[in-house]
């Protein structure tokens, strides 16, 4: 037997990259860059995980999340946040866990063994925060969902698509401020929609 062929791996291939690196450009863009109508905050380094309850174990899941992690489980179409840490409803029996640190949910899989499937999505989704006076108008150009405050306010969440790209978004405050999560491999395509849709209002990327 000959020795297996080995190729030294260039170190730069394994440098951690942000989801928006090489896609989003920091700074002011579009019309009226002096008084931008949109502010886009790139949310890098968040800890994300999907939680899928095992059939019939939702009550156990709620108990464990409350007792061990201090997390309350939101109802359909809602979020439950404590600061920047919380859960976003994504489907019946399924939630997206969001933490400001990558290690935020390291203890989840072991704690939820047999109760729920936990899948790390920290490198799987790209997260961007949309705020500014034109945030609702901007989002309304992309989603076929009523975003009027009487229909969709702080604490509401939806899974839908923007420009044929699957998105999950939720409203953080009445500003309004929205967080949008998109599959990381679609970050470039999604950003194409976002920057073109925001150009008319002027937007600042931070």
């Amino acid at each position, binding site marked *: 037997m000959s020795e297996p062929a080995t190729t030294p791996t260039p170190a730069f291939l394994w440098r951690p990259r942000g989801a928006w690196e090489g896609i989003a450009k920091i700074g002011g863009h579009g019309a009226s860059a002096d008084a931008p109508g949109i502010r886009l905050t790139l949310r890098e380094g968040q800890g994300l995980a999907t939680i899928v309850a095992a059939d019939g174990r939702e009550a156990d899941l709620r108990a464990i999340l409350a007792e061990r992690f201090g997390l309350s489980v939101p109802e359909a*179409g809602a979020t439950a946040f404590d600061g920047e840490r919380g859960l976003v409803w994504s489907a*019946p029996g399924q939630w997206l866990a969001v933490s400001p640190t990558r290690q935020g949910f390291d203890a989840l899989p072991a704690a939820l063994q047999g109760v729920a499937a936990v899948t790390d999505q920290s490198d799987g989704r790209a997260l961007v925060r949309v705020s500014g006076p034109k945030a609702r108008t901007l989002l309304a150009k992309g989603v*076929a969902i009523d975003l009027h405050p009487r229909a969709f306010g702080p604490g509401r969440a*939806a899974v*839908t698509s923007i420009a044929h790209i*699957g998105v999950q978004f939720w409203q953080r405050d009445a500003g309004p401020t929205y967080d949008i999560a998109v599959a990381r491999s679609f970050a470039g395509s999604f950003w194409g929609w976002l920057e073109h849709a925001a150009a008319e209002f002027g937007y600042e990327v931070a």
Partner: protein
Amino acid sequence: MRIRCPYCGERDNGEFSYLGDAAPQRPDGLEASAEAMHDYVYLRDNPAGTIRELWYHASGCRSWLVVTRDTRTHAIESVEPARDVARARRSGEAA
């Protein structure tokens, strides 16, 4: 046409995929006659009026739904989670 998903609310029908009639029940493949399997696989009613059909909320909550719809007007009478329909049917069979 808009479909009121029981989980997500009213959504454009472009978010959904259509499967078809929700009525056919798969016979036991080892027990059923060839005629019964043929009926299950190929034969469908095509009513002018109310039909119960399966839709999948692909771009939303990824739930299968049973939509009761009038084929003449597209008016939707009710939308139920398919798993609730299946569970109700199973518990009906068990009773």
